């Protein structure tokens, strides 16, 4: 039961593919087969770039049981540069560094491992954008 459930999400979880309404151009993530704006059923896949900014965040101390070995972790609402808002974990950052407005980018990471079926699930997380100085 659990395997197909995670398998079919691959394109969304690994590549951040959403949908675009072919009539009014509204972008959605997760994908929607009925446009939330104009109710059109004409849609196509849309590749999101995976950059955005934090509009809210929280550090979780009491997680659901599938995530209890991941503590501590932060989750955020991230407004992607294309418009849709996404819920995801923030990684590679200390809790006290997070702030509303912080720019972040998508990375692929392990989301959970110790669920009932022992399936290791990967997916998107977001990390602060770091500007590396070139030598």
């Amino acid at each position, binding site marked *: 039961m659990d395997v197909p459930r995670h398998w079919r999400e691959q394109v969304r979880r690994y590549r951040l593919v959403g949908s675009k309404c072919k009539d009014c151009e509204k972008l959605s993530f*997760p994908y929607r087969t009925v446009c939330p704006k104009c109710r059109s059923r004409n849609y196509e896949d849309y590749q999101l770039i995976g950059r955005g900014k934090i509009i809210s*965040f*929280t550090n979780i101390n*009491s997680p*659901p049981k599938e995530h209890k070995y991941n503590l501590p972790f932060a989750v955020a*609402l991230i407004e992607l540069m294309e418009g849709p808002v996404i819920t995801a974990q923030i990684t590679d950052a200390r809790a006290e560094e997070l702030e509303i407005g912080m720019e972040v980018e998508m990375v692929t990471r392990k989301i959970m491992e110790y669920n009932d079926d022992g399936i290791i699930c990967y997916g998107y997380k977001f990390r602060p954008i770091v500007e590396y100085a070139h030598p």
Partner: protein
Amino acid sequence: MDDNVAVIGVGLGKVGEHWEKSLRDLAIESIWMAFEDSGIDKVDALYVGNMSSGPFVEQEHIGALIADFAGLGPIPAVKVEAACGSGGAAFIEGYMGVKSGMYDYVLVTGVEKMTDVLPSKTTSILANASDRDYEAFHGVSFVALNALVMRRYMHEFKVKREDLSIFPVISHKNAPFSKHAMYRKEISLEAVMNSPIIADPLSLMDCAPICDGAASVILCSEKKAREFTDTPIIVSGVGLATDTLGVHDRKHMTTLSAAVEASKKAYKMAGVTPKDINIAEIHDAFSIMSALSIEDMGFAKKGQGTKMALEGQHYIGGDLPINLYGGLKARGHPVGATGVYQIGELVYSLRGDGRVDAERGLAENIGGSGATVSVCVLERGD
């Protein structure tokens, strides 16, 4: 007047951790309390408000189970599910059963048995009310979703955490009076502020507790109700609305659009405005939800949801007393039962319990992070 719907019986079981009682025990107890209160012992249909009997106690089909074990006979009995809003949704289904003329007497029972699983599993089960694939998958608990909304609210409206922490204090203020409440004591603002952080900025005492409970109410037409009592409590307006399931899809993350819609419908049906509401049972599962509810049901402007609270207007004697039996915070929040508890408590207040002289009140029940909201306006029928 003949087609008005009235509440003629209430049974509110003690909320708490009932190790010795099963889901059916709790439901049956509240049903027979409601029978005793109403003076009847037969109904034509049962609607059960329940969120997660499957994951919590591995029991579905609880409409038939409860009808069977409560001795209700072969009546129609179904479960109504809308996460933490299940009780209010079931009540509205029951209301429609009477209003339509389909049934003479309808029983609405809200029940949840949460303590048969460990707390971390409870957290996981409650997260099923969010978008499992795109919210809960990422480890976002229900507390965390509310924390995300709370931080956004504090940011947008420059509201301090201690301003929101007043809501648990208000709910607990009424708890010593509330015989069925889980925590029958007052708490201080300092206690709320200093309680451990669960998901910042939300602390333990901003959150309603995990518990077991069941509540039942009996509905019939006003005409029939007058055979039992001179002061029936009339259901004058009901409204139920939905919003995007995920918080991330909301146009305004700090507005409960479903509360706006549901309250408008209920006010319109009752022919009232927010000014006509004397008392309210507010869905204070988290402090932030109280502020948003006050605003979105029209009692305060956007961003001003804490103002009346800080002025003391939500205590008994104020302009809009709320949560007169402890609210979700002190009475407890047995999720699918909560909406029915609220209706029962509103009936107690309107019948007159010696504390408030209220003619009209409302009960607001939220499912999930706001994707379902029901609002019911009740008034004294004398």
